[in-house]
């Protein structure tokens, strides 16, 4: 019965689909591998678009609406491409009471965007995290992949200004 639907071929020639296919294979092309596969797609492409969701859903024999439901349930997944740089401000309790809201406020004003948004020039995405587990170093911020602790307002403004470059 289950062999009625053949595994689709990747949407295009992009080499990164090979990584996705590897995960799909490792998950035995089973529905249970949906979240793992979405992780791989996001790692490879930076975000999940309709094309990718459709491909993953078809490959794992997951209903389209369920794939979309899962992708939007978990906040780690994003359906929009991120900017060149990302600034993640931790809003965990320890960071919150040590001034994370003020950090967020400063960056929001400097960039003119809200958390979850990317600047119009696609240079910087501003995100918040629930807790990075770096509570000992609160307030913590992740600049691209690097965690920085005990961040002050001037630190973060300077860092983000560098990214935004001359047009900021």
């Amino acid at each position, binding site marked *: 019965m289950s062999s009625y639907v053949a595994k689709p071929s990747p949407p295009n020639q992009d080499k990164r689909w090979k990584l996705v296919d590897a995960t799909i294979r490792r998950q035995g092309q089973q529905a249970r591998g949906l979240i793992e596969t979405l992780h791989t797609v996001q790692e490879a492409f930076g975000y999940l678009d309709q094309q990718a969701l459709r491909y993953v859903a078809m490959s794992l024999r997951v209903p389209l*609406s369920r794939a979309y*439901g899962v992708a*939007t*349930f978990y906040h780690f997944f994003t359906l929009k491409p991120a900017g060149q740089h990302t600034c993640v401000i931790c809003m965990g309790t320890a960071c919150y009471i040590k001034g994370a809201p003020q950090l967020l406020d400063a960056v929001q004003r400097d960039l003119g965007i809200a958390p979850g948004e990317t600047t119009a020039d696609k240079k910087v995405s501003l995100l918040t995290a629930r807790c990075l587990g770096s509570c000992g170093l609160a307030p913590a911020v992740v600049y691209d992949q690097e965690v920085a602790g005990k961040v002050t307002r001037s630190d973060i403004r300077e860092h983000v200004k560098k990214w935004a470059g001359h047009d900021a």
Partner: protein
Amino acid sequence: MSPVASVKTLKIDGRDLSGRQEETILDVARQNGIFIPRLCEMEGLSDVGACRMCLVEIKGQNKLLPACVTTVEEGMEVTTNSPRLEHYRRMILELLFTERNHVCSVCVSNGHCEMQMLGQRLGITHVHFPYRYPQEDVDASHDRFVIDHNRCILCTRCVRVCDEIEGAHTWDVMGRGINAKVITDLNEPWGSSETCTSCGKCVHVCPTGVLFEKGRSVAEMLKRRQFLPYLTLMRKENE
């Protein structure tokens, strides 16, 4: 297992009743004409225990339990109605009224809506929590049906009937919390869905006026549900 051992005797609202061990409190109550309010549960679909309207008190238990998923046990003493239960049910329903834009007077299901009727039955003449008034979409892209998210209570009956009975799984829920929403396929317009068979089952199990047939005006949408027990029965016969 002997058939005798699988029958449990219990008390519901002081009445001595019996049920098979796989039956829920709600099943037994329904068989005996005892009303327990519910919005997400529907005979013939799987149970999710989400709306919390069918919470009942069980003697010796601190916790309130949902009648739709709690199976009967020997000697169980169930109370289906009490001032405390009514208070909670009213509050839950009031919260539901505040969540989206339930404007009964202009609704296709006015007069036939499970939520509206339940409100009346629970004596709700006003909602004491402030309304949210969110902006929700109406999707009329389907040839025959319309979905108005303003009236959705996220009972997920449409999701379940489409998956469990029709087998299409066109519907699911996206997002979470207060932003959750039922969707078709990849959150695409219903009319362009590749998977929808236009069978209309979702429309008829919907407890409110979210899903309706095109061309129906205020109070004109009557839902037909006799197909559900029939389909369930036929499937069992053929198993």
